[in-house]
């Protein structure tokens, strides 16, 4: 795979390092000459100095034959433009962008970026996992299909504890393929009875997420 990494800061540096170790062809594009020198010294001849938002720089980098471009500069607007220019002008099949403002995720998706990574959102997710408030925590979102893998942990107060899964009457847009019980996976049948401490892993649409919360936690 030929991967172009736009932005040679800490994220770009370690990303490039991992990709090189996995045997991929990598080119880092970085504006700052000093940072370029550091990368060149540590990782070898895989860095090019320039502004990745400039089409001429991307052309010189051989972007037309790249399999993926990953934009990880510190500025959302730069990551957006780099991804768009790579996709539209050089037909790079896949563009992944780092975002800082989680609200930009929807915008990037509407503007054609394949995937976004937001450290802000990741940290928020971890924070939510630490909170006891009956949260349904998203583990993975498949944006293009509006489907998410979510998790919630049942405690004694959950009204569904002791009842079989079939009693939940899950809506069509939501399914529970996996329960982690006592650290071991359990692939439930409709007759599986839920217990306190169960980690429920569900596959659901955005709409199904709210329904699932009601079904699991609303008193009946």
């Amino acid at each position, binding site marked *: 795979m030929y991967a172009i990494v736009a932005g040679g800061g800490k994220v770009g540096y370690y990303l490039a390092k991992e990709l090189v170790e996995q045997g991929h062809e990598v080119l880092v594009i970085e504006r700052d000459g000093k940072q370029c020198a550091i990368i060149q010294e540590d990782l070898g001849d895989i860095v090019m100095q320039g502004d990745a938002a400039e089409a001429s720089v991307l052309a010189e980098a051989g972007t037309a034959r790249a399999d993926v471009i990953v934009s990880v500069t510190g500025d959302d607007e730069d990551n*957006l433009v780099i991804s768009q*220019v790579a996709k539209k002008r050089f037909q790079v099949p896949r563009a992944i962008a780092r975002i800082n403002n989680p609200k930009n995720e929807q915008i990037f998706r*509407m503007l054609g970026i394949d995937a976004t990574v937001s450290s802000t959102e990741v940290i928020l997710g971890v924070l939510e996992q630490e909170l006891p408030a009956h949260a349904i925590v998203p583990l993975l979102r498949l944006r293009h299909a509006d489907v998410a893998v979510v998790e919630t942990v049942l405690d004694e107060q959950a009204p569904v504890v002791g009842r079989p899964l079939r009693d939940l009457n899950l809506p069509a847009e939501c399914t529970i393929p996996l329960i982690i019980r006592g650290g071991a996976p359990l692939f439930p049948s409709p007759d599986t009875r839920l217990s306190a401490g169960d980690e429920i892993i569900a596959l659901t649409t955005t709409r199904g997420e709210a329904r699932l919360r009601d079904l699991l936690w609303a008193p009946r």
Partner: protein
Amino acid sequence: MFAIIMGCGRVGARLANLLADQGHEVTVLDVNSQAFWRLGPDFRGATMLGNGIDVDVLRRAGIERADSFAATTQGDNRNIMASQIAKHIFNVPKVVTRIYDPIRQDTYADLGLETVSPTVLGAAALLDVITSQGAGKD
């Protein structure tokens, strides 16, 4: 007409005054409050501190009822991103983007943005002057 202008530099401030003088409602956005002095004491529009690539800031500026949006900051990428938000998320009818880099201007013109490049216009104007005066030494 209600216009939002992002970036209160020389061009943004002048555009804001021209529009306001024509009787239009104008709000100017900038991340630096010091920039608003460029509007002068007689400016009849509104100013707002904030970053135009932030959807919350744009909403507060009233983008949902804006008739036009002009992105005139120093950063091409910031202008491009804000303009795409205005056009594609908030469906502002008239959006114009200043892009210095002529190649990027081409790309985004292809992608449907209305763009103005001071680089292209400025060079053309200068060329005009240099070649049309028929001056120089024979």
